[in-house]
């Protein structure tokens, strides 16, 4: 029964992701037909058909579009997985991976980069680096504040959540302040905040992959411990685990994954909130099932959303965060109204 649910969810998840990625890979607005795109891919296999594409078009596929499809899958998986992990660690289905201020921190980092560092050219783009650092700094501060508040002997995870709210508000205020000072960069800042994936070659994929892998490994191996946390901190203690330690490790890993995702994609909401919900509804609450399924379905969701971002309003590009909100918010409301068990 146990392995059955696990296998079913993983198979459906992989299938969905594969279909989404394939669809996204062959559809675009540059005038390339799906057929040509497929031919181009198969032309690289021995014995495959010859490609009909000019070098520019082939280059577009391999260096712009395919990396973008992979990147959207990676970012979506990271957000889905980290959202599920956060929800498990805090026993709260309403938290998202930006809970402890990582969104606000990343926003501040990105704004600082845009306002102060834009005009010089750099060996490596400072924006994702600062966004990443900002996200982790905010989470660290939330933890420190939460620890200080908890020293009264109350070892409560809700205190940590509240300190995250405080830290996030603070970082958001800072970010707004910096943004207003350098107000001719407003457009760029908003553009980043609304979320989007633009690729030039495989750089972004290579940049964030290591963090996502580490984050995922730690989270997956904490699956059983997250199940133990589900009976509450006190009962978990009597069962023989240290809830604060589990929470710390999971939050650290999930924050790493979130920070890496946000660094390249801006602030994309709803994936980390809604996908784990749906996954739990369909496949149950045990984490060894819900964690990988959240990753797979999160990836598929964002791949399709990104496909929409670059095709629906062509030749403009829709901000990715807007699309996920458009789909995610009504979906979430629908779930609540139907009153389905979360």
């Amino acid at each position, binding site marked *: 029964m146990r392995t059955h649910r696990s296998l079913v969810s993983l198979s459906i998840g992989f299938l969905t992701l594969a279909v989404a990625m394939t669809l996204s890979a062959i559809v675009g607005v540059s005038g390339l037909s799906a057929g040509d795109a497929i031919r181009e891919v198969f032309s690289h296999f021995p014995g495959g058909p010859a490609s009909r594409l000019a070098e520019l078009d082939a280059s577009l596929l391999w260096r712009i579009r395919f990396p973008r499809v992979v990147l959207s899958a990676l970012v979506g998986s990271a957000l889905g997985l980290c959202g599920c992990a956060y929800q498990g660690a805090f026993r709260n289905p309403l938290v998202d991976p930006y809970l402890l201020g990582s969104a606000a921190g990343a926003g501040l980092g990105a704004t600082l980069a845009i306002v102060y560092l834009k005009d010089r050219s750099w060996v490596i783009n400072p924006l994702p680096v600062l966004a990443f650092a900002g996200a982790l700094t905010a989470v660290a501060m939330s933890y420190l504040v939460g620890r200080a508040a908890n020293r009264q002997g109350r070892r409560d995870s809700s205190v940590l959540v509240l300190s995250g709210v405080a830290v996030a508000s603070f970082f958001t205020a800072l970010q707004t302040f910096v943004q207003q000072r350098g107000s001719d960069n407003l457009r760029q800042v908003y553009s980043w905040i609304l979320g989007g994936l633009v690729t030039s070659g495989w750089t972004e994929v290579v940049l964030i992959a290591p963090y996502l892998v580490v984050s995922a490994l730690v989270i997956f191996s904490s699956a059983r411990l997250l199940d133990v946390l589900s009976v509450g901190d006190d009962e978990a203690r009597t069962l*023989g685990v240290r809830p604060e330690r589990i929470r710390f490790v999971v939050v650290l890993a999930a924050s790493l994954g979130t920070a890496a995702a946000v660094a390249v994609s801006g602030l994309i909401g709803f994936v980390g909130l809604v996908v784990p919900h749906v996954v739990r509804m369909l496949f149950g609450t045990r984490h060894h099932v819900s964690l990988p399924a959240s990753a797979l379905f999160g990836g598929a969701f964002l791949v399709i959303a990104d496909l929409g971002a670059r095709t629906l309003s062509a030749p403009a590009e829709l901000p990715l965060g807007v699309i996920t909100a458009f789909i995610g918010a009504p979906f979430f409301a629908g779930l609540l109204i139907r009153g389905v068990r979360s």
Partner: protein
Amino acid sequence: MTGRPPAGVTLHGVSIRRGSVEVVHQLHLQLTPGSWMSLVGPNGAGKSTLIGAMAGLLPHTGKLLIDKQDVATLSIRDRARLIAVVPQRPELPPGCTVREYVLLGRTAHLSMFGRGGRADRQLVEDTIERLELQWLADRFVSDLSGGELQRATIGRALAQEAQVLLLDEPTSALDIHHQQQALELVDQLRHAHGLTVCAAMHDLTLAAQFGDRVALMACGELLAEGTPSEVITEDNVKRAYGADVVVRHDEEVGLAVIPRRRGVGFS
């Protein structure tokens, strides 16, 4: 099941503070290996607090020894292999089946990343059978009735293979039939596995019927400790609870505490 001989429990000078108030004061208590100690007393006497401290959830001064070993020196994991708790109001994780719930009891025995081997699963199945939960094994714990949930929680505690079983008001949410059922079950298991039981109870009759010894607490202190008939007397009940009762000793049912009604029409 544990294969270990029953363990004795000693509380030596245990005091527990909650905020600035001392809720339990310098308590000394001894539990014989394999015995059932009923912890009774009015609300606010400190019974649940004491259970919480013994479970490792509340800090305390003084010593808690299990078979002469100071529990404070143990890791949380090792402690869980010695002491199991059946809480008063257990959390019901959504989407958790009874089988998975009982399996949680194996946490202290599983390796960091392991999910439980065949031996663990077998133990869980045996426990489920013993507690007559087979027909409910795949049901969600949130769908169980009070009595069924109590059995599942006892099953989880049993799966811990601990030597000491702590129960916090095990019958407060149950009707009379299930009260009996739960307590009889715990008693059987106690004898079968050589468990030492300490149960905080509000029902004096049941406390007397099931306990080998009774500890009466009031205002954080131990008023009396001994056999049920020694401790549960009309005077002690009056002193501790302020209640008027009649204590009857019956050959068939043992000790019974019957509230004495005040007012007209009674002799």
